[in-house]
């Protein structure tokens, strides 16, 4: 079936809006890390945060009064995507748009605060205002209410491949002719607790830079924000193929599963790849698989510049891929060494004839997914 991107929205630590973030990436900028600490621990971490000022343009809405950052990021990105497509949700078409929301850690800030009250002061101190915001689908519910969507709304949970799994689900939904659009949103917020968890899992480094495809996997830096794409059946950028995804059992199997995904998507010409390399063990798996299957493709990852946004990451990659196809250039890949055995854009690189791109998402918790973007 025909699947196209009708509009996109993007909020990251580098800026708010597709064009704003894209321009920062083209200039070779990276987000500024913010130190995060916690009162009961002497450990501190660095993360890429979305500055509060970036949400200044977001119109007030009753649903956002008490909502966590993740819901506000999602609202900002979702509204941008609809505006970019020139689509308005009206009561008469509210059921003809579905919403699929991709998430990994969810509303971790309120979840931590809610549980902290229980641990510190007992169950009677638990806040009935916070609890509903801890539920995975709270951000999707807020977004549906803000946009007026009354039909299908799904929240999908997974690792950093979940964004592409959500797009696959959107494709499944759009086989139903009663739907005109599906808005896919990925969002995440960062907290000290997440940094600590990923550090103990040996996946996080204490401070930037993120060094992609480095022989020594020194770790990632977490980030936050949201990405949104409005899918329809017609548009300038097509999602020519989605891979349903797969999972690896052990880290040693990662390369094999990534290779299968690339092979499925590389049956026709591939000009460049938006990789999910983030400074962890997945970089080596992707590097080996890409070298073996499509050695001539240019490979880019934005994670050195914007960090690992987990639930939002897949959507960010698709936006990057679509933007690169549309603007016919790739930003410079940051913090690379000359020994990387891949074709990487060391500086702004023109893609004059590029028409096909693979977006590859390998999550750190066993999920792998991919899709192919094309200009018709």
């Amino acid at each position: 079936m025909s699947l196209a991107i009708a509009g996109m929205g993007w909020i990251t630590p580098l800026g708010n809006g597709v064009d704003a973030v894209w321009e920062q990436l083209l200039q070779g900028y990276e987000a500024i890390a913010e130190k995060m600490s916690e009162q009961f621990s002497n450990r501190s971490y660095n993360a890429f945060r979305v500055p509060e000022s970036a949400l200044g343009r977001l119109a007030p809405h009753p649903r956002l009064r008490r909502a966590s950052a993740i819901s506000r990021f999602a609202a900002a990105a979702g509204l941008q995507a609809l505006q970019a497509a020139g689509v308005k949700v009206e009561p008469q078409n509210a059921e003809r748009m579905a919403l699929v929301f991709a998430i990994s850690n969810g509303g971790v800030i309120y979840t931590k605060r809610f549980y902290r009250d229980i641990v510190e002061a007992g169950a009677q101190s638990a806040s009935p205002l916070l609890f509903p915001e801890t539920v995975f689908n709270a951000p999707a519910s807020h977004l549906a209410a803000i946009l007026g969507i009354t039909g299908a709304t799904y929240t999908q949970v997974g690792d950093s491949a979940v964004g592409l799994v959500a797009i696959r689900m959107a494709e499944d939904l759009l086989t139903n002719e009663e739907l005109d659009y599906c808005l896919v949103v990925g969002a995440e917020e960062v907290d000290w607790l997440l940094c600590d968890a990923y550090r103990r899992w040996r996946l996080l480094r204490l401070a930037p830079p993120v060094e992609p495809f480095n022989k020594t996997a020194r770790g990632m830096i977490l980030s936050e924000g949201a990405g949104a794409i409005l899918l329809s059946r017609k548009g300038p950028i097509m999602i020519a193929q989605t891979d349903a995804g797969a999972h690896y059992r052990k880290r040693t199997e990662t390369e094999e599963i990534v290779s299968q995904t690339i092979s499925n998507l590389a049956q026709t010409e591939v000009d460049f790849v938006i990789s999910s390399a983030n400074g962890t063990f997945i970089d080596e798996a992707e590097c080996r698989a890409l070298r073996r299957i499509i050695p001539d493709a240019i490979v880019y990852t934005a994670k050195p510049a914007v960090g690992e946004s987990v639930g939002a990451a897949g959507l960010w990659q698709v936006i990057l891929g679509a933007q690169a196809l549309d603007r016919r250039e790739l930003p410079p890949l940051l913090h690379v060494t000359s020994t990387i055995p891949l074709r990487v854009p060391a500086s702004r690189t023109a893609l004059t004839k590029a028409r096909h791109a693979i977006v590859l998402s390998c999550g750190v918790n066993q999920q792998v997914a991919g899709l192919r973007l094309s200009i018709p």
Partner: protein
Amino acid sequence: MLKSAVENGKSTNARVAVVAAGVVSPLGFGLSETLDSLREARDCVTRVTRFSVAECRCKTAGQVADERLLKDQPEAGRARRLHRASSMMIYALRETLAQEPQFKPELTVIGTTSGGMSYGEDYYRSLYRHGSLRDSPAWIANYPAQKPVIDAQETFEISAPCQVIANACASGTNAIGHAFECVRSGRYERVLTGGYDALSELVFVGFDSLQASTPEKCRPFDRHRTGMVLGEGAAILALENLDAARARGAPILAEITGYGMSTDNFHLTQPDPSGIGPRRAMERALQSAQISADSVDYINAHGTATPFNDAAEGKAIAELFGRVPISSTKSMMGHSLGAAGAVEAIICLLALQHQFVPPNINFRAPDQLADLNIVANEARRTALRTVLSNSFGFGGTNASIMMQKFEA
């Protein structure tokens, strides 16, 4: 794998069979024990033992016994390292595959609300109290919501891609509904679906803080209902294109014939009192199944026993279906959240197979707000052809699936 019919932009509208199923819940381990509990109207709600409930209003929940859960695992050593949600999923999948060992899904769609939340609690408590974090890598690795699904698949060497749906209390029904549509559209031939959730302190205290849970018995649709009790469990259904299933001689346990969902944007935790959200979901399930309301023989209601839910759902059912027999089986086992829709789909399956309607226990007095035909306190033997199962959740997500006795 995409089917050519869909590549051409056509919908096949294939019939969708349930060819195998498995369940573990407070009602029992497996289909047989579940059936016995339903027929005998057992109250399977007990005092919570997993964590302290001393400061909570509600002290009870439907619980799955750990000893038996671990004893029944194929690899006991591995099961002890996994989250108990994984153990429940493994149990349910093992029962499913015992019926249909040849079932090779192309996709797995599972609902949950909280994943391995209790491991997140262990981790936070240890951090906060400067306790031992020796086990923290295992807690962190087994906390994510997709992990129990992947664990269950790996146990039986299934490598289907997973979609994990977290639509609050409607997750299980949404998962089954989406899986149904995937097979019906012709995009997939075989899909594994269901839901799971394990009891956790954070969620238990959360519902208690909202005063949604009750210190008394759970009495859905009763005039004096005071709230819900929580539960836990896992349930899996193997869905297959009916023609393909028949061609390979698979048993057809029932058909799923319709699915409807809606989103009411009234409030994050409360349903629109008009019942419009549930009503739209049920209307869409009827449209999807292409039947009229008077064809429905039984409704397994969401029926949490909270004043708001039962009023809205009861109103919508009375308006749409009149006096069709309804019950909320949550009265017997509590509300298992992401598992609820899947466990209740299994209950509907058993009702269709054994031609009875399961009871709504602890029922004393009808609510005057809606004229409902409650299956009060005892199971009823009756002829059933078509049944509807409802699940509604936080965030205003409403889902209904239609199931039908298989007639060749």
